[in-house]
């Protein structure tokens, strides 16, 4: 039973994408609704009910043309696309612009965030330098500071930055991305570093002997090997940024510059009752990119998140 020792389990390090390993294993087994999995379906359906009933409520409000927060009905008393049409046709509430801005902010922000995090993780994982350990610990501690308190300072900072570089000042989506990137290194470096550590150093050594530089190793080899974690971090950060509205609402004043989070939030603070239908419709549509991303990246995601920690 030596294999039960967790320490032993940490030895085998997957050189290939872990998901691939699993898939081969899957191949050997017959699929289908066998007698032995029906209970899994039953429980999964139960879980779906739990997961979806508040969403059914939102769907119901979204297609209900009279669209108020009618608190006790799951079934709408009418169905129409009126709320969706409203969303796309209200000049004072430019939903389409919000959507584009959100995709831009979350997309670019997450890509940059992953890149910065990966660079830092590479350094922390592969190199030894003064301040490495304290640096890692400091990054951890910094995450504990209640971030909302620092928003005032961020606002002032970006007011000044906007004075020098208007393109990334307040009220710009690019500025907002920059603000988010302040936390890019701290938020993900632990997760990333854990995964980087699982890529054997021997591979690096071999490449070095071949004459490859550290940069070449990083870009052409390491990044490929750690792809699952990169996808995972991208996904998590995308979800976080896509509907973030606390910081964004301080940054983005113009309606056309706003993101979905800010816009929808403003919609419901303007009048919770009047705009409840469009608000729900907008929220539903807002969930699409995340679901699509998840579907698209499911293979990479599997194994990305925690593999790093199973050293």
């Amino acid at each position, binding site marked *: 039973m030596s294999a039960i020792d967790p320490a032993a389990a940490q030895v085998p390090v997957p050189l290939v994408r872990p998901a691939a390993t699993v898939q081969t294993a899957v191949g050997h087994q017959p699929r289908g609704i066998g007698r032995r999995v029906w209970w899994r379906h039953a429980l999964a359906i139960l879980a779906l009910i739990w997961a979806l009933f508040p969403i059914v409520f939102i769907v119901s409000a979204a297609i209900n043309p*009279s669209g*108020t*927060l*009618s*608190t006790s009905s799951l079934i709408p008393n009418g169905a129409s696309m009126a709320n969706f049409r*409203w969303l796309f*046709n*209200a*000049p*004072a*509430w*430019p939903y389409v612009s919000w959507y584009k801005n959100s995709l831009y902010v979350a997309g670019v922000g997450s890509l940059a965030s992953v890149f910065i995090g990966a660079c830092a993780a590479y350094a922390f994982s592969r190199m030894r330098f003064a301040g490495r350990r304290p640096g890692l610990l400091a990054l951890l501690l910094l995450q504990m500071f209640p971030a*909302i*308190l620092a*928003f*005032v300072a961020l*606002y*002032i900072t970006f*007011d000044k930055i*906007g*004075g020098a570089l*208007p*393109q990334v*000042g*307040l*009220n*710009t989506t690019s500025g907002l991305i920059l603000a988010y990137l302040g936390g890019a290194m701290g938020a993900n470096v632990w997760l990333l570093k854990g995964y980087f550590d699982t890529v054997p150093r021997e591979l690096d050594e071999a490449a070095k002997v071949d004459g490859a530089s550290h940069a070449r190793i990083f870009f052409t080899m390491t990044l490929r090997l750690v792809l699952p974690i990169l996808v995972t971090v991208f996904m998590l950060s995308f979800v976080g940024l896509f509907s973030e*509205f*606390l910081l964004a*609402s*301080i940054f983005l*004043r*113009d*309606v*056309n*510059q*706003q993101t979905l989070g*800010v*816009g929808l*939030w*403003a919609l*419901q*603070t*303007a*009048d*919770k*009752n*009047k*705009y409840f239908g469009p608000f729900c419709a907008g929220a539903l549509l807002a969930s699409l990119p995340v679901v699509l991303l998840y579907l698209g990246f499911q293979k990479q995601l599997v194994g990305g998140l925690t593999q790093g920690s199973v050293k």
Partner: protein
Amino acid sequence: MHRRAIGAVALMVPAALAMSACSSGSTGGSSSSSTSSTSSASATTPAATSTTTGAPVRDTTADLVIWADNDRAAVLQKYADAFGKENSVKVVVQVSTDVRKDFSAATQTGNGPDVIVGAHDWLGEFVQNGAVEPINLGADLTAKLLPSAVAATRFNGQTYGVPYAIENIGLIRNTALAPTAPTTLDQLLAEATAAKAKSGGKVTNSLLLQVGKTGNAYFTYPWLKACGGGIFGQKANGDYDPKQVLINSAGSIKGATILQQLGQSKVLSTNVDGTNADSLFAAGKAPFYISGPWSIDAAKKAGIKYAISPLPSLPGCGKMQPFLGIQMFYVSAKAKNKALAEEFVTNYMTRDDVQTAFFTALNRPPALKTAYDKVAATNPDVKAWYEAGVGALPMPNIPAMNSVWGPLGQAGADVISGKSTPKAAFDAAQKDIVAAIAKG
């Protein structure tokens, strides 16, 4: 609206720059728009925001920059353009979804607008922070505006803005269920009981009042005022005096006792709040609803026939008095161009057609007498809303009001839910409020 907005705004604005927005007076809902269809129909797209894309917070190429919320900006755009043309200047209306917060923050860093459109209860805080400029309206203009509206634009004896609309709550009734307007609470309850009996279970509530679990001081106040209580006493010059807190005065307690009785008899409930009251009324579940112009949209959509009348009088007390909310234009103390800004708000925004346009879009009675007369003649609602607010006092615009929303709202909620007695609840609220004001 008021207390309800706490979560919302405090959440959005942890940035202390606008933390006080927690009490955010009428921003929550009352001062918000009420007719999406009309507001979006008004001519142009919300703002010349296209010109500001990628620019820093303020549009630096403009001669005059105005910030307003989505619905108001839509109304304003046309007149701003005309004003710009007449004076050959570039006027830009920018949409700000939270004017109070954005203005406070941007003004401190020197990148704010010249003019904002907002509610009068923001005033005290703006003055404290040196953010707004006094405006001398002159006797002629003052005489053209409703006195209560002008009164609300004053703080410490100085006038700071130009009012364009007033709003207050009244008694909305479903005329199918309650054909006559009650003038006393007893009449109201009797009518409601009859309506309930007749409906065979469809009518579940006698009277809707947005209370919620944390209460709502805006809707609690009229009950206190009816019995001679209130929130703050007034100084000789009519200003509210933060040193006279009337929360546990005999009058307030008397009003609270009525709330307690209504809670016991299940007329009022802390389960009715801002999220469900509109739809309950729209579903015909209650003959009466105490709320403001912003609450009738759902009923209209649902085809409910309604009428508005003044709030009833309470047994053993006088008539319930709501707060008046005034919507106004402010000129920034940091305005790049005060002359143009003042010209715009004093001579242009006080025109008949402008104030009428605001009414058309937002349903609030205009503050300009001539505009009011015009719309009141054609729209029975306006007249009814106005009459429901006759004799009412403006909501306090002193900063001390920030300390009132929480404790007073909660005291009202606890009395209604029966968790506490009027005396205990309002004594505790008084203590909290006085302590908070002393703390500063």
